[in-house]
């Protein structure tokens, strides 16, 4: 007789509520699934809403990716009117995305991935709480808390508050920065740069000479993300799917549905591009798609890591530091733009041009796309939201299933399997709140 056993383990140190379901069949692992508990139904209660009402509602999808959600949504609404957003607003949106990324990435790095890295590379097995981490390295801890605060302050200055921004509305940003705001923000970015150089040096010193374990290797995947002429830019660009140097494809956001589409039940994303391939979005894909950071320091930093790192999902931890470092410097450049505190009038959103609107952006965890449809009364009749982590779930499941099977065969210890799977999931940095939209 076949013996079936289902083991459920709750994920900790992740954003939101996730569980891992391990299926044992005759004492062999047949499948492992990373599951998101519930769907909150945002796509269904957006139906019936007015267009300019949407961005602040969708902000509440996620308390970490709020700026990305709102800005992608504003872009989608603006798409209905074919208006061009004032340059000043676009620059401010960049700053808001930078602040969000600094906050989100540093929280993930410190609370979620660093304890795992210490354990994976056998540096310490017991640095699992902020209390222990402070004792282990108080300087690093201080620098991380400062980064979180800096991200937060950038949002407060230009967004009106730290989470669920007030200033971001369809049409632009309703805020005119003062000279004082700009000089404060400059101080924050300058401090962030110093902190990040320290943390990056530390990371290189501790980890670059070690070889990441094979179980964290990425299988052959298709990297997807926004491409802005090979530059690193999370606000705009064309969509690119890249398998390797030879094989890639690029298309405009309005044609996305020729390549991928929401699952019929709005749970998950299907790629018609190549059904056997897995897709990845987020820092690793952005790294693969970026051709030039135009920053000597970054090129030097990246040079410390060999192929064994570049194929590992653990490399994303380093890339998160690099992304913060890059955007910190971009922030400093933007703050010098004279248009930033020039009086601007936002465009009017009265003359409708399209019955659909699409907005795409690179959220901290990858490509985020909003697509809305309206009826004759300019009321939403359908909404589709493509969440980065939704795209990554199949590859997360493949990776944890393969490793769990191998580890269980070798050790026969389900508790070790449970623990190890969690570190792999955390390395992918899933945003469960977003998936459970």
């Amino acid at each position: 007789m076949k013996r079936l056993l289902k083991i459920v383990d709750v994920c900790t140190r992740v954003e939101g509520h996730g569980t891992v379901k391990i299926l044992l069949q005759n004492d062999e692992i047949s499948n492992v699934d990373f599951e998101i508990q519930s769907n909150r139904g945002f796509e269904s209660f957006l139906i019936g809403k007015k267009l300019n009402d949407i961005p602040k509602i969708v902000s509440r999808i996620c308390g970490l990716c709020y700026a990305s959600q709102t800005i992608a949504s504003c872009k989608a609404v603006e798409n209905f009117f074919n208006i061009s957003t004032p340059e000043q607003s676009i620059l401010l949106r960049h700053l808001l995305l930078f602040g969000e990324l600094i906050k989100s990435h540093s929280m993930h790095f410190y609370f979620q991935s660093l304890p795992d890295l210490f354990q994976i590379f056998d540096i310490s097995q017991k640095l699992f709480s902020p209390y222990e981490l402070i004792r282990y390295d108080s300087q690093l801890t201080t620098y991380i808390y400062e980064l979180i605060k800096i991200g937060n302050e950038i949002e407060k200055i230009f967004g009106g508050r730290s989470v669920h921004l007030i200033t971001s509305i369809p049409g632009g940003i309703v805020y005119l920065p003062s000279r004082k705001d700009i000089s404060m923000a400059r101080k924050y970015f300058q401090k962030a740069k110093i902190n990040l150089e320290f943390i990056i040096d530390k990371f290189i010193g501790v980890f670059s000479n070690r070889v990441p374990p094979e179980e964290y290797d990425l299988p052959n995947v298709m990297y997807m993300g926004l491409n802005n002429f090979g530059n690193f830019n999370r606000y705009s660009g064309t969509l690119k799917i890249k398998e390797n140097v030879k094989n890639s494809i690029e298309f405009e956001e309005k044609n996305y549905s020729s390549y991928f589409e929401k699952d019929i039940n709005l749970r998950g994303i299907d790629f018609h591009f190549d059904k056997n391939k897995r897709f990845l979005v987020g820092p690793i894909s952005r790294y693969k798609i970026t051709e030039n950071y135009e920053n000597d320091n970054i090129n030097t930093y990246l040079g410390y890591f060999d192929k064994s790192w570049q194929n590992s999902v653990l490399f994303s931890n380093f890339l998160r530091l690099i992304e913060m470092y890059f955007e910190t410097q971009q922030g400093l450049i933007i703050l010098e733009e004279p248009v930033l505190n020039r009086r601007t009038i936002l465009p009017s959103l009265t003359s409708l041009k399209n019955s659909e609107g699409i907005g795409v952006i690179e959220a901290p965890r990858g490509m985020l796309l909003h697509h809305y449809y309206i009826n004759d009364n300019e009321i939403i009749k359908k909404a589709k939201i493509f969440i980065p982590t939704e795209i990554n779930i199949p590859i997360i499941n493949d990776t944890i299933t393969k490793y769990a099977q191998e580890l269980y065969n070798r050790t026969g210890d389900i508790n070790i399997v449970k623990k190890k799977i969690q570190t792999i999931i955390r390395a992918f940095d899933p945003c469960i709140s977003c998936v459970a939209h």
Partner: protein
Amino acid sequence: MKPRFIIISLTSCSGCISTLISLDIFPQFLERTKIIYFPFILDVEKIEDCDIALVEGCISEESEINLLKEVRKHAKKVYALGTCAAFGGILSLSNSKDIKPISDFIQIDGIIPGCPPPSKLFGNILIRLIENKDTSLSEKVLCANCPLRENMEKILDTDIIKINPNPEEIILGEENSDCFLKRGILCLGPITREGCESKCIKLGLPCEGCMGPVSKDFTSNIINFLSLVKLSKDLINYEGIFYRFSKPKLRR
């Protein structure tokens, strides 16, 4: 002895938790307390006795009720963290889920309202909790200390035709001078608790009610407000203006 804290999330966006971690006083909070359960940053799986539990998120599933009751059993005080836990929050808009604030299932000792809770208010309440001091909130509505108060309309006879000003109407860098209700824009200041420092209003946008109601009888407040303003037909038929953040209670 350091007060022992539990911090849990139910159905939520984790925005209150991320606000907590990015508060200026968070390092101080860690130092002055003992956090014994906080899945966002700790691996601990078991809920034990604590002095204070902060609960983020609303109830949308059966399993959450059990977890909530378990927390109540182990905590001397339970606080609803954020508007979802306190009043239901954004999912009050949901047409498929029957969501509820946590006070529908357990006795609570206080709330930290807001979507997310304003940093200053949040930080002050945390310090007062650590020091075992009174944490009661202002019972005034937002209008009481509104920056536009001087130009506030006493008799509201303007037709309310919009819930948002048009982007081109907002003059960047200047404080708006007129009460929104006078300009025909719906502002929920009259039925929303103060404590947010009127951030939206200062930026030229009306209050949406994210701090939640002052009195527990939210529904009668809305009825009262509706009897004082003239809503356009378009807005009367528009769903989810008044219960965008707070779910009205139906008592039978």
